[in-house]
C-alpha cells in the first residue's frame, strides 16, 4: 500500500542551519496494517507523515502509494490525497462552517457528491464518532475531543484507503484523549490501513501491528508491539521507553 524507499528530507531553519528530518528512511506498509510511529520530538515522525501526502516534498528517494509514485509531477496529487485521510494535532476544522458542513464540504466539491448524498454520509460518520447531535453547531462551541472526532469524520467522509494521525491526541485535555482513541481503535479493528504518530503507548500496545521507533530521521528499531515493549534491543529505544513509561 505504501512504499517509502531511501527518503531524504532536510529543512532549512530561519538561521540557515540545515536540519535533517529524514535520513535514508525506508519502510513498507501493507494494506490493513496499523503502524504506530514513536520517537522523541524532532525525530522526523511528523515529517514522514506529511511526505506521504506531499504536504512536504522529499529531497530524494521515492514514495509509492497504491502504485502511484508521489515524485511524479504528472500524477495529480489531489487524486492521491483524496485516498489518504489526515488528522492533525490541532484538528484544523473549518471554523466558519458548521460540524455538518465541515464533513460535507470536500465530499461535494472534490468527490462531486450531491448535498443529500454528502449529508447522509456525514450523518452516518458523525453517528459513528458519537457526535451526531452537534451537527449544526460551529467548531468553536465544541470541546477539543469533540472537535477531533469531527475531524476524523471529515477525513473518513472521503472514504480514504489510508488514514494518518499526526499526534491526534497531543493537544487534548487528558480526560478527552480516551474518546478519540476509542474512535481510532474502532477504525483499526475494522481493517483500515493506519499510520499513527502518537505518544499514547497504550494505543500502540493494544492495536498496532507494528511499532517504528525513530530518532534523528532514521528508524532505530521496529517490530511488533510485543517485541518492542517487552524486548527492545537498542539502547536508545530502552532509554526512550524508560523516559515515557
Amino acid at each position, binding site marked *: 500500500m505504501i512504499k517509502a524507499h531511501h527518503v531524504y528530507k532536510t529543512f532549512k531553519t530561519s538561521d540557515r542551519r540545515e536540519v535533517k528530518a529524514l535520513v535514508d528512511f525506508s519502510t513498507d506498509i501493507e494494506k490493513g496494517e496499523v503502524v504506530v510511529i514513536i520517537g522523541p520530538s524532532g525525530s522526523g515522525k511528523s515529517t514522514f507523515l506529511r511526505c506521504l*501526502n506531499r*504536504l512536504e516534498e522529499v529531497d530524494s528517494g521515492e514514495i509509492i502509494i497504491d502504485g502511484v509514485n508521489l515524485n511524479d509531477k504528472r500524477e495529480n496529487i*489531489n*487524486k492521491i*490525497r*483524496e485516498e*489518504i*485521510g*489526515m488528522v*492533525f494535532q*490541532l484538528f*484544523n*476544522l*473549518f*471554523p*466558519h*462552517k*458548521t460540524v455538518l458542513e465541515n464533513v460535507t*464540504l*470536500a465530499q461535494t*466539491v*472534490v*468527490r462531486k457528491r450531491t448535498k443529500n448524498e454528502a449529508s447522509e454520509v456525514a450523518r452516518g460518520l458523525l453517528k459513528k464518532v458519537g457526535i451526531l447531535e452537534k451537527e449544526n453547531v*460551529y*467548531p*468553536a462551541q465544541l470541546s477539543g475531543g469533540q472537535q477531533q472526532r469531527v*475531524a476524523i469524520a*471529515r*477525513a473518513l467522509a*472521503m472514504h480514504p484507503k489510508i488514514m494518518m494521525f499526526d499526534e491526534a491526541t497531543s493537544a487534548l485535555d487528558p480526560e478527552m484523549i480516551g474518546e478519540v482513541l476509542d474512535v481510532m481503535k474502532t477504525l483499526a479493528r475494522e481493517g483500515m490501513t493506519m499510520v499513527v504518530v502518537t505518544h499514547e503507548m497504550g494505543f500502540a500496545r493494544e492495536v498496532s501491528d507494528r511499532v517504528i521507533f525513530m530518532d534523528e530521521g532514521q528508524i532505530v528499531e521496529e517490530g511488533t508491539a510485543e517485541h518492542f515493549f517487552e524486548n527492545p534491543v537498542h539502547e536508545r529505544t530502552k532509554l526512550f521507553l524508560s523516559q515515557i513509561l
Partner: protein
Amino acid sequence: MSFNKRSLITLAILAIIVGSAYYFFARKGITYIWHWESIPEMLVYYGAKSAEDAEPRLRMGILMIGFVLTLQISIFSIIFGIIIGTIVGIARLSNEPVTRGLSAAYVELIRNTPLLVQIYIIYFFVGSLLRLSAFAAGTAALSIFAGAYVGEIVRAGIQSIHKGQMEASRSLGMTYARAMRHIILPQAFKRIIPPLAGQFISLIKDSSLVSVIALADLMFQGQQAVARTYHAFEIYFTVAALYLVMTFALSMATQYIERRLAISD
C-alpha cells in the same frame, strides 16, 4: 435592537458637536447672513427644468444629482476595488516570482503616487488612448487606487489564517483554488472587514477628487452652486452632510455584516 440605539447615540453626539460649533461661530459675531433657505431646492424641487423640459414635476436639485453620481462612482469603485484587491492579494502570495513581482510593483506604484496625479494621468493619457468617458476614467482611477490598498489588506488577511487550514483543505484533495475559495478567503474576509470598511470610507471621500476632471459629482456640483450663489458656508456644510450620509451608512452596514458573521465565533 441595540444596533439602532447605538447608531442613534453616535448621530446625536455628532449633531451636538456640529451644533455647538455652529453656535459659537454665530456668537463670535461674524456678520454673515445665512441663507439656508436656498439649500432645499438644491436637493429636491418641484417645477420645470428648462424651456424644453417644462413639465412641472418633482425633480432632483443640483446637489442631489451630484450625490447620486458620487454614490454611483463609489459603488462601482468599491466593487472593482474588491475584485482587483482580491486578485492582487492572492498574487502577492504566489510561488511564481513574476506574478509576485508584478503585483508588488503595482501596489508600490499606486500607493506611492498621489491619487490626484493618477486621476489626471488616467483621464488625459489612458482616457484619450482608449476614448474613455470622464465617468469611466474617474471610476477606473479610483478602482485601481483602491485595489492596491485592498490588495495589501487581503494579503494580510490571508496570511493571518492559520496554515493548518490550507493543509487540512489540501489533505482532503481540494485544489489550491478551491481551498482559497471555500476555506481561506471566507475566513480572511471576515477578519478584514474593519480595515476594509475604513478603506472604502476613505474611497468615498477621495472620490471628491474626480471633480477635477469635470465629472459632476457631489463636490463638483457643490462648487458650481457656490459659484452661482456665493452661499459657500451653507452649501459646503450640506455637501459635508451628504458625504456623511454615505460614509455613515457604509459604516453601519459593515457593522451589521460583522455581527452577522460573528455567529461562528
